[in-house]
């Protein structure tokens, strides 16, 4: 319809169309798929097909070399993984703790900073620059930077504790302090992301409900709790969704600070780190694929739970 009818609608353009070669007309008529097909083909070849393969591998005993013969063993790997209280379930717990605690602080701190930045003031520009820096910094480099700061012997963190009379802490080196320390690093790097998203949401809100609440004599806290927060809720959910997906998949800072296997006691071994180790340190492809499929289901499940709430909140 489009290419053929255009000249009728526009006599001025009539001279253009007859000159158009046949292939160009064909391209014009099929532009919908012509434009989308290359990207879709890339996604099919490099994402959907490999993901399906991973799904298949999770049902085999593939190990050692990807070229080695492997046998179909049904859900054997799933039984093995789901009954593994040694590595799998602790990794699930760490992934949940890491994501939950990091998200909580990132959203609370992010909301506080976004509210402070909401109204324009002098020097605002410099605060915005500072907020951008951790965001664009290479996560592996950020991990290394904190590794120096948290070094038990020479690090700035223990020096600073010394000034206020607190004894040195093991930080990343401690079996129980390592995971909280990596959570802290994640909060340092990604709270700015939440600030930017919430600030975009706040800026798009209209002033009227605020003013109305003020005239009604609502306090600052009441205005936030009953006016701003409900209006901002969709943006908060988006921030939790975007940040949550990435937090579940955190790999770089864990690998940079604790190395393979999440440290010698697996103290920061999350699902992603565990699956990576199974694949590339132990070459257990069948088992790692099983962990990855379960991990993928966990991510999809938490996303689904959140978006369901989002629809519920919108009602």
């Amino acid at each position, binding site marked *: 319809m489009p290419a053929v009818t255009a000249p009728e609608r526009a006599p001025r353009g009539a001279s*253009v169309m007859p000159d158009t070669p046949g292939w160009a007309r064909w391209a014009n008529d099929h532009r919908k798929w012509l434009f989308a097909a290359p990207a879709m083909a890339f*996604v099919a070849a490099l994402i959907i097909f490999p993901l399906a393969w*991973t799904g298949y591998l999770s049902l085999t005993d593939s190990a050692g070399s990807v070229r080695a013969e492997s046998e179909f063993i049904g859900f054997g790997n799933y039984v093995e993984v789901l009954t593994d209280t040694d590595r799998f379930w602790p990794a699930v717990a760490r992934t949940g703790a890491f994501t939950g605690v990091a998200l909580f602080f990132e959203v609370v701190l992010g909301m506080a900073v976004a509210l402070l930045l909401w109204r324009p003031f002098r020097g605002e520009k410099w605060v915005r620059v*500072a907020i*951008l820096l951790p965001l664009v910094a*290479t996560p592996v480099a950020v991990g290394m930077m904190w590794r120096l700061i948290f070094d038990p012997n020479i690090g700035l963190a223990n020096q600073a504790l010394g000034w206020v009379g607190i004894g040195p802490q093991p930080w990343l080196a401690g079996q129980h302090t390592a995971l909280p320390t990596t959570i802290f690093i994640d909060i340092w790097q990604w709270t700015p992301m939440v600030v930017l998203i919430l600030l975009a949401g706040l800026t798009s809100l209209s002033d009227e409900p605020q003013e109305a609440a003020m005239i009604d004599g609502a306090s600052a806290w009441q205005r936030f709790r009953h006016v701003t927060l409900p209006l901002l809720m969709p943006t908060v959910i988006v921030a939790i969704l975007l940040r949550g997906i990435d937090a579940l998949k955190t790999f770089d800072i864990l690998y940079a600070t604790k190395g393979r296997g999440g440290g010698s006691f697996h103290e920061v071994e999350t699902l992603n780190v565990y699956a990576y180790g199974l694949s*590339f340190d132990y070459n257990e492809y069948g088992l790692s694929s099983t962990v990855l499929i379960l991990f993928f289901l966990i991510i*999809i499940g938490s996303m689904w739970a959140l978006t369901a709430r989002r629809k519920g909140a919108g009602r």
Partner: protein
Amino acid sequence: MKPRTGFKVFRTIALTVVVLSLVAPLIWMVAASFKTNVDIYDSAKALVFTPTLDNYGTVLQQANYVQFIVNSLWVAFAATALSLLLGVPAAYSMSRFNMRKSALVVLMARVIPGVSLLVPWYYVFSNLRMVGGFSVLILSHMFVSLPLIVYIMMGFFDGLPEELEEAALVDGLTHIGAFRRITLPLSVPGIATAGILSFIFSWNNFMFALVLSGADTKTLPVAIFDFVGYASIDWGGLMAATTVVTLPIMVIALFVQRYIVSGLTAGATKG
């Protein structure tokens, strides 16, 4: 609404604390990169020390970082250019023809853990003798770049009025002509946003290069680990290496701040 004075004082103090806690670790990293390892171990020389360029000498000469900088630039540039080439027209189609299901498939890539693709990739690409080469690295980085670009550009095209294209059709342009001569020039800010973010994400990417790069094709985030030994860490060299990786991207970010912010918050306020 004018904030009260008490709030202003509180805001100034709170935001000073925020800025300091965000910037101080970075300054500490850069400072350590100019220290000898002896000075790094000496807490008396935390802030007052004689700067040295030795660490940068190590990084750029012994550790072959010039090569790794070129590698990182090339991979990030190629992955971004190819992703724009595939992603911008696709985003246009998905926006104009309302192909929400196709879009969802592309965007799913943001959710999939990268590790779950690495084993199949490794198998296929090692059979093709491509592991360790640039082409496989570029392809793997496109896994991150392409969905990002499609996501940002779809939002951009959604906000671009269709009337402009319709006017061009009336003037006798074909649909593809209207896309090329009207829509694309108007999309430069969106393409810049998507391109800059894609470049940064690729520059920072670690896991794909960790598995798929070779000794000559290593990118900077992987090369950082050259300074971490089994027994000891060359802290000065390591901090110079991390500075070399992060400083360029942070300086660029200062100049294109607006684009980065609009890219990172794309779609966040549509509800």
